[in-house]
């Protein structure tokens, strides 16, 4: 497909705008002014065709099954998109007088309340703009807490199944990361006891973890950390595994982040924007970033917590993402949210049961919203999981996440979500079974996949060695 630069020609663009200032204004000094602007010069019709063509080369949840593990690619309700695109929002500057934005502030305040209830926490900030951003914020709050107490703690503990954002967020605070080996795919309380001491800052835990297992020893884990004064952080990426059934706050988590673009149905936008609100227990409330939204007899205003860490981003958070998640909660209610995890977990276990003998990993137990299978038995045929993923594309599906978590060799991490019905799952299961047969009878077809896509196996080595990041 042609690039904008390649269809650009001087004089094609006919954009115009009125100027109602008719007096002479003195110019800026020459030294500040640019001599030319190098932007594509294209007509509106060409522009529209260009982007429509590009969209056709892309695959989203609206196109089909998108079972990326830990991403929760569920259906994005269109009513929420429509409301978030209301004309009015083009006028709402974040700094307008609060008397004017009472409706918007009400939504933010109610969202703070909803999330407190759903997560079992005492206070929430809506400021973080993504999950990783929320992780940083949660850890930063804990850092301030320890700093205030005069306690010098610098070690963060992570299970070997942790998302990469967990150690990366810890590093941003200058904290040292210690990884502990899982036992049967879950945190081993004994190993944890050996490692936790007075220098331990926190344990960061995703629950269900990235294998889709509920961390069954969670209460014991909490006790171990508490005994040494360390804290427990919740990575909410997998909340779709038990929302409405259980709450991280009730499990002993001191700070949590939620991913509105996962559990709460806001679209992923090709990589973003998202929103990662952070909830804390009472003892950490004073450290939340400002502003928080307060409600005094239906009048909404901003407040700054007494020992606030400051700000982690501009303004108050990704409002239109927060709005979409708010609407989702209003549409589902408590019962609807509970059904989300019930069906998400039903779907994941259904896939696991049907495919486990074709793609066995070292685990076989009840999962929550996602399951991790493995392509390792096909190594003998010279086929790797990446080949299987490419072949899945030929069957019309987006592949699952591959090669994560690291504790499963040749991992296939499948999260169907609750918005896929039995027909879709059966088609996917059929395709996976067919592929396993292909591997045994005709491995070349899988090794050479994909066969049906326009582009096949981009040369990543070339992309790295001959770096070309602009035209």
């Amino acid at each position, binding site marked *: 497909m042609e690039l904008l630069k390649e269809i650009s020609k001087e004089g094609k663009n006919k954009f115009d705008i009125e100027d109602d200032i008719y007096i002479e204004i003195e110019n800026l000094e020459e030294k500040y002014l640019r001599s030319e602007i190098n932007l594509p010069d294209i007509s509106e019709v060409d522009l529209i065709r260009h982007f429509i063509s590009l969209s056709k080369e892309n695959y989203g949840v609206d196109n089909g099954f998108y079972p990326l593990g830990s991403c929760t690619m569920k*259906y994005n309700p269109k009513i929420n998109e429509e409301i978030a695109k209301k004309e009015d929002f083009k006028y709402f500057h974040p700094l307008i007088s609060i008397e004017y934005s009472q409706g918007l502030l009400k939504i933010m305040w109610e969202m703070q309340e909803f999330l407190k209830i759903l997560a079992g926490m005492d206070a929430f900030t809506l400021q973080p703009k993504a*999950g990783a951003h929320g992780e940083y914020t949660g850890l930063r709050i804990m850092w301030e807490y320890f700093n205030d107490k005069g306690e010098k703690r610098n070690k963060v503990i992570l299970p070997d199944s942790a998302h990469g954002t967990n150690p990366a967020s810890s590093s941003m605070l200058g904290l040292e990361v210690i990884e502990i080996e899982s036992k049967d795919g879950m945190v081993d309380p004994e190993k944890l006891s050996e490692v936790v001491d007075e220098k331990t800052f926190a344990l960061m835990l995703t629950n269900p973890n990235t294998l889709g297992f509920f961390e069954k020893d969670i209460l014991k884990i909490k006790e171990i950390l508490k005994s040494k004064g360390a804290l427990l952080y919740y990575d909410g990426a997998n909340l779709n595994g038990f929302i409405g059934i259980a709450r991280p706050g009730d499990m002993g988590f001191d700070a949590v982040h939620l991913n509105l673009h996962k559990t709460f149905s806001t679209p992923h936008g090709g990589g973003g924007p998202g929103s990662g609100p952070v909830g804390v227990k009472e003892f950490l409330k004073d450290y939340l970033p400002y502003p928080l939204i307060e409600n005094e007899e239906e009048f909404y205003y901003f407040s700054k917590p007494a020992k606030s860490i400051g700000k982690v981003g501009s303004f108050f958070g990704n409002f239109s993402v927060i709005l979409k998640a708010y609407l989702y909660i209003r549409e589902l209610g408590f019962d609807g949210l509970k059904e989300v995890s019930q069906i998400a977990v039903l779907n994941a276990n259904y896939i696991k049961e049907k495919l486990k003998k074709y793609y066995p990993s070292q685990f076989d137990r009840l999962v929550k919203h996602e399951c991790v299978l493995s392509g390792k038995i096909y190594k003998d045929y010279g086929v790797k999981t990446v080949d299987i993923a490419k072949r899945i594309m030929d069957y019309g599906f987006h592949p699952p996440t591959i090669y994560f978590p690291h504790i499963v060799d040749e991992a296939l991490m499948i999260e169907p979500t609750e918005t896929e019905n039995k027909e879709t799952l059966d088609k996917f299961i059929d395709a996976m079974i067919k592929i396993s047969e292909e591997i045994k009878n005709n491995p070349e077809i899988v090794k050479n996949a994909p066969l049906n896509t326009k582009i096949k196996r981009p040369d990543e080595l070339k992309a790295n060695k001959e770096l070309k990041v602009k035209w």
Partner: protein
Amino acid sequence: MKFIPHTQKEIEEMMRDLGISSLDDLFKDIPDEVKIKEKLDLPKPLSELGIREEIENIFSLNTIPKRIFLGGGAYYHLIPSTVNYVLNRGEFYTSYTPYQPELSQGMLQALFEFQSVLSDLTGADITNASMYDGATSLMEAVFMGERVKNKKRLLIARSLNPEYQEVLKTYIKPRDIKIEFIDFKEDGRVDLNQLEEKTKEDFSSLVVQSPNYFGIIEDIEEINKIVKKRDALLIQLITEMMSLGILKSPFELGVDILAAEAQSFGIPLSFGGPYLGILQTKKEFVREIPGRIVGETVDRNGKRCFVMTLRTREQDIRREKAKSNICTNNSLNAIAALVFLATVGPKGVKKIAEINYKKSHYFKKRLIDEGFNLTFKGPFFNEIVVDLPFTDNVLKEKLSLVGIEGGIPLKYYAMDNSYLFSVTEMNRREDIELLICSLKEG
């Protein structure tokens, strides 16, 4: 069972296949102590019609000011109809990070074009595929500077957006980095003499915003000369990208890292977000830049295509040694900015910028006509600070009578009677006259 597409029969069939009699069986591995026992206190669910009505009710609590003279990090600009048309494509907005390039060439090429267009606009060698916002982008720029130069002292111009100063302080506190400020002079610009003095001691970078928080255009060329006498980097922040319609490319003037907020390019004010963080740098620092980067390559048949590249900088591969923890970014808003720039074109961006400049200077002329004093005398783009003989409450009242929002008091600088106004192509001449009138009153 909102949005859940199963029939009851299907659910029962699946349960039978799993050998369970109740969905509760799927959660038996969760200890009873942590299970929710009572129904949580959330409002009862609403249908689509119900939601529309509820939102109408909530929004009736809003007042929509249409004459917006507010700036300070977010700007009221035109949004061409093409932007939403493209953003509404489900193939774009319901997709995820393009980890599987064969299914994501649309997004990958669009992001490559975004990177290219932004690089061309500023003279950068490399632009990443977006950050959350200008503030976190600036934070990443500062950490980049620290990694590259391995020095623990950071210089910041005090005329930097106060909110951004807060964000930097929050991120820097746990790290062993010392911040020192460079003051501004009467004209609102960086004190070059003070800069000369303060750069004598080792430092990693100087952070300067231009146009700065007061709307004043800094002399980046001169500032660069001073910084480059030492082994340090020049980091520029831009919060009003529309200024680049007339202002020189930052990288031409010697900037090493550019952090910016590009909300001005086709992204609505939407009460604070999501916006669009820009992070750019020179070739030599390409391995230090965080965030996703799309690169051009060929597939096995030699066809040109695009793929994410330099992935070993990122968190999923490099983990605790990653350049940043960033995963989700602002891809969709990057597409908005791309569509915006492609819609208005090179002449359009220049014209819009010129109109911004003219209108803000028209406002200045009228203020001076009416005897008002400009706080700073330096050159400016579309924001201006005015001394007004009333408190911010009084100002707010005056302006609300005419449906105007504007005038951010410079309380952060203990200049309570100085107010920041922004004037863009969206402010008609009669709105400017109305504002002048309202300021004159009483």
